[in-house]
């Protein structure tokens, strides 16, 4: 059933593109299929947002065709690869794009599982009436395939038990609105202040929660700005975790493998990619009132990343693709899982294999403080620096810094204490 739905998604999207939007590129047939299979992969020139967000979202549909038909995370993984591969070879007259296959598959798995769990949390099989319908509708943008399957099966109204993903255990939802002061965020325009909306969602607790299944713990950050709109979407979910010391000890250390999806785009910079990281999350309690110090140290492999590069030289595309490696660290103070202070750093290296013959180094570090001013309200102040160093040849370098300060009024809702 899941495979049939993946084929159905591709057929539906292709027919809509061909018949409704009159896209000539969607009028593929046996001649295009034969040519695509014979000539194989190439790199495409699509816009950054198309390749780094729209394609992963589309991949999430394939993945969730599996999840909503009862497959677990690992069983649904092949569907993302199959769906993307078949679309690239049979859904378009263009030659199949290797960067699309990477981003749709790996990004689709990461975003798909996040969306599957978020929508499962929103839906409530014990709810009735108008509230139930609103919940089903609210979950639809995250998991349209799951929502469609539930509608067809009559599960929008049926009363029954919720799936395990419905209850994340400990969670934290934090919404913030305010202003960003950023230098060069609008290209070459000095210091700007722009409006910002920020969403942070922590599903589960990395240290307190024993490993059960992939993405049983994940975190999401979304930033929208008045300048450039959709600026940041970062998601990281653990694929595997194991305790490094006795769970009864006060200080806890957990080895984790995480899958990461990163998208950052504004008018001056574009960075993103699919990666896997391995490292240690730790927590040292302070006193008996729920306070503690948290640390994280991780090394990562970027399966395929993308970064803007003026010298890309590939048609209209203005960013490079390449794999890489990196590391990140974090030090924070929390109370019952909600962070008050975070100091963090992240260093990534991307070796371009499509675009400019370049090596890019990105260093992103900062400090973030959340100050409560009421039961749920607070102020969030942060300062970050995004530094990049791109080496296009032994003599041609491009070094840029993007400092930024953020001041937000925040509202926090947190679940059971971890």
């Amino acid at each position, binding site marked *: 059933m899941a495979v049939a739905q993946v084929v159905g998604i591709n057929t539906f999207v292709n027919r809509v593109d061909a018949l409704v939007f009159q896209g000539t590129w969607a009028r593929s047939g046996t001649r295009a299929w034969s040519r695509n299979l014979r000539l*194989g992969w190439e790199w495409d020139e699509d816009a950054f947002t198309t390749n780094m967000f729209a394609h992963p979202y589309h991949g999430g549909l394939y993945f969730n065709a599996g999840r909503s038909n009862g497959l677990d995370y690992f069983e649904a993984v092949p569907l993302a*690869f199959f769906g993307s591969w078949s679309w690239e070879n049979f859904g378009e007259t263009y030659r199949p794009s*290797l960067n699309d*296959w990477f981003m749709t598959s790996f990004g689709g798995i990461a975003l798909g599982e996040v969306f599957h769990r978020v929508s499962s949390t929103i839906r409530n099989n014990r709810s009735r009436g108008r509230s139930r319908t609103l919940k089903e509708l609210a979950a639809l943008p995250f998991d349209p395939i799951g929502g469609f399957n539930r509608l067809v099966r009559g599960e929008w109204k049926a009363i029954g038990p919720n799936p395990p993903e419905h209850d994340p255990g400990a969670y934290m939802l934090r919404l913030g609105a305010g202003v960003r002061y950023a230098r060069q965020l609008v290209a070459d325009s000095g210091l700007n202040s722009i409006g910002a909306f920020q969403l942070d969602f922590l599903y589960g607790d990395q240290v307190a929660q024993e490993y059960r299944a992939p993405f049983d713990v994940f975190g999401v950050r979304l930033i929208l700005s008045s300048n450039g709109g959709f600026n940041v979407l970062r998601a990281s979910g653990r694929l595997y975790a194991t305790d490094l010391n006795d769970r009864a000890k006060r200080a806890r250390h957990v080895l984790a493998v995480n899958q990461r999806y990163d998208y950052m785009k504004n008018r001056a910079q574009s960075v993103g990619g699919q990666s896997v990281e391995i490292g240690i999350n730790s927590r040292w309690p302070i006193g008996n009132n729920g306070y503690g110090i948290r640390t994280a140290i991780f090394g990562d492999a970027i399966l395929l990343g993308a970064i803007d590069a003026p010298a890309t030289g590939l048609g209209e595309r203005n960013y490079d693709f*390449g794999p890489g490696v990196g590391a990140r660290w974090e030090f924070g103070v929390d109370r019952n899982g909600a962070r008050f202070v975070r100091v963090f750093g992240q260093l990534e290296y991307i070796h371009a*294999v*499509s675009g400019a*013959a370049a090596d890019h180094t990105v260093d992103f570090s900062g400090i973030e403080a959340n100050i409560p001013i009421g039961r749920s309200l607070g102020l969030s102040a942060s300062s970050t620096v995004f530094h990049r160093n791109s080496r296009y040849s032994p003599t041609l370098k491009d070094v840029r810094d993007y400092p930024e300060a953020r001041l937000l009024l925040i509202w926090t809702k947190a679940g059971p204490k971890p």
Partner: protein
Amino acid sequence: MTRAVWVSAFLALVAAPAPAQRPHRPHRSGLWGEFGGGPGRLRVACSGCNSVVLSSGSTSYIRIGGTVSDHVLIGVEAFSLLDRGFGFVSGDSGSTENGTIALIVIWFPGRTGLFVKGGVGLAGGQFTLPSSPTTADTSNGLGTGMTFGAGWDWSISRRFAFTVNVAAYVTAVGDVVLPSRRVDDVIATMYQGSIGFSFR
């Protein structure tokens, strides 16, 4: 003589006890390893190229790993394809070696020896073209790659098996820059059919 050896090997494989006769044994357990080789096909595509370059070569691989469950294995695979008659255009008489080192997952869906494989990891490509009758220029590229495939374990004893594989390797190794030629954004796709030997 060679044909007789192949026929004997084939009969030995066919006559090997079917895994279905031992339904409760896992396909592989604990530390396992596998190596083998066979013919391969290489397709090189690049940015700005109107066509692709096709050639053939010999492949070899080695895998080692552990078991996650009775049906799922995880491991590391090193694969390479060598073609000593490679050329980007007709008349070139160079060579190329492309390969991957990947983290792989092998899944046995049932109790037969059938398995499917997927993986992702580092990819490398080396392209050598003669610059004169006595010298040659070499360009090395490093990048990323994915592999997918299927195979069959034929048990020959409790600890050993012959393994046949078909697999595809898609690798992106960047630019090939030689004094005489520049080929941008190379994607090398390799197809492999192989026979291997597994200890498990």
